[in-house]
């Protein structure tokens, strides 16, 4: 409303729609995984807006990586805990 530039949510939706053809050609299982990736980028929309980069897609990709890395850290910790439990 009354804005010159699209909001970050609008920019996000535009970027996601730009990959519609790519998504269509993926296998169903891969499509669902891709949707998960986009959903994870959405978790950091406010930070992306605050960053104010001219091309927000880079920040969206970084947000996906960030969520992936958090997942890796979590799995690694869980694995450590399981190992610990097995040893004990």
């Amino acid at each position: 409303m009354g804005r010159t530039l699209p909001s970050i949510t609008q920019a996000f939706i535009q970027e996601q729609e730009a990959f519609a053809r790519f998504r269509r050609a993926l296998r169903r299982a891969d499509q669902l995984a891709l949707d998960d990736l986009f959903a994870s980028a959405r978790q950091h929309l406010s930070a992306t807006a605050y960053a104010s980069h001219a091309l927000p897609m880079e920040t969206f990709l970084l947000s996906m990586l960030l969520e992936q890395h958090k997942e890796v850290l979590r799995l690694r910790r869980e694995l450590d805990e399981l190992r610990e439990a097995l040893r004990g």
Partner: protein
Amino acid sequence: MADLTGWLLDLYEDDDEGVALWLLGDDGERHRLRQDFPVTFFAAGDRGRLRELWSWLRRHPLQPHLARGRRRDLFREEPLTVLSIELDSTIRQPQLFQEASERFPNLDYYDADLHIALRHAARFGSFPLARCHVRADREGRVQALRVLDSPWDLDPPPAPLRVLALQPDCDPAHTDPQALLARFEGQDYRFSLQPERSLLVNLRALLHRTDPDLLLTSSGDTWLLPRLLTLSREQRLPLPLNREPGLGVLQKKEGSYFSYGQIIYRGQQVLLYGRCHIDCRNAMMWQNYDLEGALETARITALPLQVAARVSPGTGISSMQITTALHHGILVPWRKQQPEQPKTAADLIRFDQGGLVYQPITGLHFDVGMVDFISMYPSIMVRSNISPETPFPDRLVGSDHPPGLIPLTLAPLLEKRVALKQRTLSLPSWDPRRRLDKARSSAHKWLLVTCFGYLGYKNARFGRIEAHEAVTTWGREALLRAKEAAEDLGFTVLHMYVDGLWVQKEGCRQPADFQPLLEEVAACTSLPVALDGVYRWVAFLPSRLDARLSVPNRYFGVFQDGSVKARGIDLRRRDSAPFVADTQREMLRCLSRAKEPDALQASVGAAVEILRCRLKELHTGAVPLEDLLVGKRLSKELGGYRVPSPGARAAKQLAAAGKTPRPGQRVRLLFIRGKEGVCAWDLPGPPDPQALDLEYYERLLLRAAANLLQPFGLDECTLRVWTCGNSGEQLSLPLRAWCRQREPYRMPLQPLQNVLKDCS
């Protein structure tokens, strides 16, 4: 010569010259006074054209006093050379200005279209219900006027207003009323609408006997007063609605307008002279703050009471800015001429943003502190001196420039709001001043909120988008500093929303535990900050469309004192049926009784039991039809719908029955079975209860319940199985898993197949 003291009730243009004032005297009398009050407006622009205007005005029959002068335009560095046009007759000024602007359209006009009450306020410091001391001669001409109090006093002396309440015996939009109910000083009256002549005679006698200062009506603007006026004309029996003899009432037409992304409908208005009329159904913010709030809005905006009750807070705040400008000799432009300044793409990307709105960590959280900046944006405007004419601030607090127009206008309002808020907190819950303070403080809130919006509104007289952006820029900075302070002290930030943050830390349960954080935030932002409360628990809900996504403004929680706060769920939505909203509210109240996480399990069971009972009531026809009504707002003209929404379909039925629903109006409807799907409530005949689409209402109710119980692991599907079967078994919930979820990860919602198997 007489000396009078009393309250200023009304002020308007006198028919002859100057203004008419109505004073509620300390002697109990209502005095009509007249005051000389010449009004001035200005023209500026090309010298030749200005000269032509001057010679035209010299020959004008109204004979204005003309002079050349230099005045300050807020948007120019140097004072402006202006032609000042002064007129003794206040009532003819608009006409003179209109003629001048039509004849000389390419000149700039200033102070040209201002409400007479604002001009008076700027000159004498007057406002509605101000205590005044007046010296007047025998003919009631004011020789001297002194205002004895200020709108910023915390406890204004209550004015002895005589209030006559009038309302029809039912909603005239729904059925034809049969009688008129009146109430004056605790005494009730009932007048039958037929025969018309005796109604008028009785009402006339009542008005003469009680001589009210304020007519407080329901549907007075849209139905009652227009109808009484028509009757009075037909029966040739004058009705003394005005105190001022010989003047007709002022009728303003209905209209729809676009504001903040919504179409808003405003019914026609009926304004009186020497007496105020407020229609509580047509007053803008009535549901937020009732008569006390309307009185407070009038006092601080200086607009007459009946106008202040009807205008939007935006008009209220512009009025305050106009009074400040007039008081400081700053020109008030008739039409704004400043376009947006050119800027680089990088600046545009950086500054064209609003407040920071985070995606919360969804799920259920215990012992959460809610930290809030007090009136964040207005505080920033005042402390960083943000105004259209001041340069972009280079820091959060402090400025090297003299205070601008906006900070000058806002500072006393902000101070009063903070003082009232602090006093409310210190008063015991039974103190009657609490309710008064709350109504006043809510009136202030809306004025302050819109003040920020008006800075960015392109048609606002004192708006400038760069100033609007400066406010959000420093708002984002303050919130980020608060986040950093919280994380430095070991808190987890669960959510942030423009001017508040939700924080959690192991071992922090009492308000005192959050005190160090408040001090740190206040120190690093220099803005006033407060702890809104500590939640026993709060649940942030995911998006309705995709459970993987969290959304900023859908949550509910319970504070330590047991009070509930909810946003974005059915009980807050204006288009929820009362039956659905009430059930959800009752379930939430039930959940709120659990003091400890362990007690929640039992509360969830009890909430499901409430749902089961309500569903049974729905199917046995025990729910009154009024409770199933849904109010849908029309967003456009009926012809504009390509695919008619339920609201539009109901509006079409009304149109076919001869009524005229307007954009912005709410159409009340019932959902029924059949092709139409809906049935408008305000149709002439009663609806058929057998036709109700109970399955649809059941779906609405289950969805509302699922919104509430989803954080406890129950979705719509599970609820349907539980409540529709008659399983009386003990409910076992995967609740502990949710309580323990403190990790900053989002857990996907598990389908509760296992729970289902246990129960069926």
